[in-house]
């Protein structure tokens, strides 16, 4: 474990930025935080988390796959790949770090998504423990410990200092680069931190939310539940929840005709959209209720079924704070879970 004084944090950033692009949460003028590329003068945000999750770094909202150049009736195919740059994502919260595992299982298992894959390879993740969890946090529900965040490097922040612990080879290498700026230290302070955080975690309004009712093999239990009507009745069908979600991984592949060629790109899609997974025969989820159900069934039943019980929600709370009508997974879990427990 190494530590450094927070006054030197910008030197740390500068050092990292020397060898690779560095991204970290920065305050925006609207009061929220967003990941920005670090350059001299950039200030690391104190915000608990960003509106957009760091999944953008590995699975960007839009990404060109290839380009067809057409001249008259001739077509030439051009490789447009550009994801081979080393980068460091700094200040990722435990929940978001966990989301990468969930995405990995989708993109890196059978039929590896090489775009996602190479971004993962080139990315180093420096996580940081939560100092001030929000009422919307429920990561514990999914067995995530915000005081012990994973990633290539874990970090803990106190009023005055920041502590680093490397968890991976990549992490080691990066930490070594910082050796001149950091000093070896024991874990006492960090342990105090952990204790503090856990104390707060036990006060959170959503602390008792549990997943018992859900998981693989529960399809029939929930799929036809009458409760979906009620839960989805005022859903607007917008994509906010899916686009701020760190684990939503659905995308669409589209062609854009530039006039002198075609760019084939992929972009995020949302199961909340009426056009989602539209096929030749039309849509297979005809109503908002079915689309709404799909999202939560996926997170709470289908995904765990295919991924050894791992839920595809990390309890970051983004959807809770951003949904225009504040309908969210917590409400679904309580309603559904409660329903089956009775």
């Amino acid at each position, binding site marked *: 474990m190494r530590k450094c004084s927070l006054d030197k944090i910008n030197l740390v950033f500068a050092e990292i930025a020397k060898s690779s692009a560095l991204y970290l949460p920065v305050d925006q003028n609207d009061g929220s935080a967003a990941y920005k590329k670090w350059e001299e003068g950039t200030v690391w945000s104190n915000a608990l988390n960003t*509106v957009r999750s760091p999944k953008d770094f590995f699975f960007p*909202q839009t990404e060109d796959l290839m380009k067809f150049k057409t001249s008259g009736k001739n077509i030439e195919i051009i490789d447009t790949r550009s994801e081979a740059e080393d980068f460091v994502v700094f200040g990722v919260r435990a929940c978001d770090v966990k989301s990468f595992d969930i995405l990995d299982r989708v993109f890196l298992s059978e039929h590896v998504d090489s775009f996602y894959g190479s971004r993962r390879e080139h990315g180093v993740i420096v996580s940081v423990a939560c100092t*001030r969890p929000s009422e919307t946090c429920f990561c514990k529900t999914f067995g995530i410990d915000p005081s012990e965040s994973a990633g290539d490097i874990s970090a803990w922040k106190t009023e005055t200092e920041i502590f680093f612990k490397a968890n991976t080879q990549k992490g080691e290498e990066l930490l070594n680069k910082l050796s001149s700026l950091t000093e070896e230290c024991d874990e006492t302070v960090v342990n105090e931190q952990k204790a503090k955080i856990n104390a707060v975690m036990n*006060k959170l309004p959503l602390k008792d939310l549990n997943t018992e009712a859900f998981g693989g093999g529960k399809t029939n239990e929930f799929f036809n539940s009458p409760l979906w009507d009620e839960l989805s009745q*005022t859903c607007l069908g*917008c994509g906010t929840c899916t686009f701020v979600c760190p684990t939503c991984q659905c995308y669409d592949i589209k062609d854009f005709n530039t006039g002198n060629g075609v760019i084939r790109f992929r972009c995020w899609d949302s199961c909340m*959209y009426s*056009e989602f997974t539209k096929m030749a025969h039309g849509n297979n989820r005809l109503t908002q209720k079915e689309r709404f159900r799909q999202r939560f069934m996926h997170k709470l039943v289908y995904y765990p079924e295919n991924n050894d019980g791992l839920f595809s929600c990390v309890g970051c709370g983004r959807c809770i704070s951003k949904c*225009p009508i504040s309908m969210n997974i917590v409400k679904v879990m309580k309603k559904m879970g409660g329903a089956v427990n009775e």
Partner: protein
Amino acid sequence: MQKITREQLIEKAVSLLADGTVSCVLGWSKGEFDYDVTPALFNNEEELKANFVFNDFCGVNFSKYLISKTNKCDGKILVFLKPCDTYSFNQLLTEHRFDREKVYAVGIPCEGMADIAKVKQICGDGISSIAFDGEKMAVTTLYDDAPVMISTADVLAERCVNCKSKKHVAFDELMGDEGEVIDSNRFDEVEKLEAMTPDERFAFWQNELSRCIRCNACRDVCPACTCEKCVFDNPNSGVENKSPANSFEEKMFHIIRAFHVAGRCTDCGECSRVCPQNIPLHLLNRKFIKDMNEFYGEYQAGAEVGLRAPLVDYTLTDIEPGEVFDRGDSDA
């Protein structure tokens, strides 16, 4: 603190359900936190008593729901409308979007709704409870033992700070007293922008719109965006797109959306309320409103049913497109 209380509204709803005037109620349902409310349909007294809430966070404009919900429940549907909601209500009727006969509209007074983001800016994250108390709200967080007293006026949503009207322009029944149209300052921000140089304006919007993630929340919540199929979802429209691939598409979406609702937008402010990226979308709509007021005379969409919107009307002596610039911005 709202003048009208949850209990009064429940009482009203229950009586209307009881005498068969309505068969269901469109209202606010309590959520996980004190500021957390979800629009919901209530079918009976029990549901109302259990979940109906009304407080300073009930900003949702119900008007648009009437399009779908009037078909959902047989018999009339009771809808509680704040003054600004009634304008959307009228506009939708003007466009024949729902059956007036299937709605029983109760106008309720509104003291302005709070914006939780503003609350959190004052007392920080981790809110454990909010107690409403007169002009103030007592906010307790996980991190301080004593509640922080915040005056509601300091945390009003932008649209309420610049409230354009406390007058109900449509209702079957009015609770509380008749309000008045307010001479608001809602165009000040627009004027500030107009006064900037084109470069400054461009920089401003570039920065704002670059945050757009095309979640479509602004569109899907908008009472004017009621198209059976939006051109941006329609693969045959030629302009369909799912995500803003670049700054052009960000602008394209928001310009066209603003243009499509121009003359129909009642300035209810829902778009800005729901934007997860806090883009001040109302500044686009208000620009159109302000322009049309200046070019073609004062016009408030939804003020009455059946009004002819400026863009589907004309006079022989309208301003020429070339002349619209000779205002505001310094270099004109």
